[in-house]
């Protein structure tokens, strides 16, 4: 098992290499000259040349890439063109904020989805099943930014119960686990959880329904197992499929929903990416994308490893 995880980790090296190449290419794929974004159009040529030299844009591309890679590998992502602060600090704090929101949203979505999906699969009457299917359909179809705005209008503007935006009370620095901060999380968490809730409910329902039709469930009944013991067997069988979808969904949330974070002014990676795009802040874009890509890779690896642990039929070859 450990060996398998190690081997998978080694496989990630070429993938990471490819990702870094793509992220590097961002600078040159983007229309226009990266320097022209930060200097006024009427800047004298020597200033532009100086800046080009300072950022290394005067060297050939492969050299630029290797230099960038070497610096990046030391954990130095450069300096934000917009704020002048180190990219690493900016990305780290944004990433932390996104993770906090993603964890609360996935916890809400997945626990509810497992409950609803299982209930629907076990449902003996069509009403329960239909109701859950409806919920999941609404979950996948409702535009979540629209829901976010509606939530703000209802709970913040009309009822004044919950704060509409921000990470926490004003002039607070960073996130802490206390009531005011949790209050700020409630609306974004709900808005962010609708899509994974819809997708996961459908997956859980379909997977469990499938498994309940399997002969081994009858065999378990025939040997006198009670419903709770059988549910344990069913859930373990459903786990690999559900985990795979959960991994993808969680990955999407980690990417930070640009729309949700913008609506709630939540200073996460989505928010950071959004402002970086508008400011053409390429170091931030590169740094954020790189960190997110690595996180996504690690998440997928974790899901794969857990899957092989749960389901012995998946070859550890």
């Amino acid at each position, binding site marked *: 098992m450990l060996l398998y995880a190690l081997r998978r980790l080694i496989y990630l090296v070429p993938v990471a290499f490819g990702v870094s190449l793509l992220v590097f290419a961002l600078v040159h794929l983007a229309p226009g000259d990266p320097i022209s974004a930060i200097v006024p159009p009427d800047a004298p040529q020597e200033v532009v040349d100086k800046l080009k030299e300072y950022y290394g844009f005067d060297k050939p591309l492969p050299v630029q890439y290797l230099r960038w890679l070497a610096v990046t590998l030391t954990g130095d992502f450069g300096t934000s063109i917009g704020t002048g602060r180190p990219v690493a600090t900016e990305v780290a704090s944004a990433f932390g904020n996104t993770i906090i929101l993603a964890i609360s949203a996935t916890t809400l979505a997945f626990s509810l989805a497992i409950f609803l999906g299982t209930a629907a699969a076990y449902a*003996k009457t069509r009403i329960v099943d239909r109701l859950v299917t409806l919920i999941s359909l609404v979950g996948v179809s409702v535009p979540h930014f629209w829901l976010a705005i509606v939530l703000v209008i209802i709970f913040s503007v009309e009822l004044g119960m919950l704060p509409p935006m921000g990470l926490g009370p004003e002039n607070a620095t960073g996130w802490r686990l206390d009531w005011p901060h949790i209050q700020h999380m409630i609306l974004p968490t709900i808005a962010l959880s609708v899509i994974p809730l819809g997708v996961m409910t459908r997956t859980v329902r379909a997977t469990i329904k499938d498994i309940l039709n399997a002969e081994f469930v*009858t065999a378990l*009944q025939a*040997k006198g*197992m*009670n419903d709770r013991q059988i549910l344990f067997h069913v859930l373990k069988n459903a786990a690999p499929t559900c985990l795979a979808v959960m991994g993808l969904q969680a990955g999407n949330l980690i990417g930070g929903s640009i729309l949700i974070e913008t609506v709630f002014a939540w200073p996460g990676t989505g928010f950071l990416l959004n402002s970086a795009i508008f400011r053409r802040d390429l170091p931030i874009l590169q740094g954020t994308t790189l960190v997110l890509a690595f996180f996504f890779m690690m998440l997928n690896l974790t899901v794969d490893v857990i899957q092989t642990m749960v389901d012995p*039929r998946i070859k550890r070859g």
Partner: protein
Amino acid sequence: MSALLEVRDLDVTFMTPDRTVHAVNGVSFDVKRGETLGILGESGSGKSVTLRSILRLHPEHRTRWSGSIKLEGVEILTMDRRTLNDLRGQKIAMIFQEPATAFDPVFTIGHQIAETVRRHTGKSESDALKRARELLEMVRIPSPAQRLKAYPHEMSGGMRQRAMIALALSCNPSLLLADEPTTALDATVQIQVLLLIRELQRELDLGVIFVTHDIGVAVEVSDRIGVMYAGKLVELASVEQMVDAPRHPYSRGLLASTVQGSMRGQRLEAIPGAPPDLGEVPTACSFAPRCKFAEPQCVSAPPTLGSVGDSHLVRCVRAEAPA
């Protein structure tokens, strides 16, 4: 000696919102300890439904049972869930057609046997595993200690079916229900498994109900054979009676459709037509449309099960007629 299992006038009806199916209509039989009853029939004849009804394995909300199934005098059809769960796997155990799907794929064989032992005996995990090991030895699985740690997909079909038998026998049941346990196996493995069941049955004095569509298998393992057609027993007799003098035209047809070496070059007899739809309770002999001896009286009322000799029962108006 009184019967181990008594089934009386068993009706099984499945109800879905779209359709009602009368899968079993008035089946009665007994099984004694140490006796094997073979139930023979084609797909859809109700043989598996009858077998599974003994453990009430059909979804309760869609199935209606009537009649009576008694194990050692205790009624199963009206038993509460908890008592039923205690009985399942302990007094009555079951083996399935496809051992590949009857084992949970994500748990080891050892775990699944030990789980059953613990469920019914309250033994500790290690004692239960010890018992599981003994059981694997009893069904003659080589290197049982290693096989305990194997997952179902890591074993061959024959091995899995042996493990399934081990699981079924784990709590010393008095009745073993076998639902086509050899159908999914290769011919050579089939014989080994049949012989194993036969041998264990004698050793443990088990009552066995063996459902199959294979006449050769039924004749091989059974003491008595019941032939089912369209949810009814059409003939019930000892193996000798059934082989030498089947009385029901359907039983005769079945036996005539087997292949023997001496029949080389002859045309193989087949029964024309297909079994009826079971959406309605039959009002006539269900076999009449396919029967070459059908008479007007066959379609006027369903025939009753009549005795034609020493515990030989036939459901046919022509039962007394010579073959």
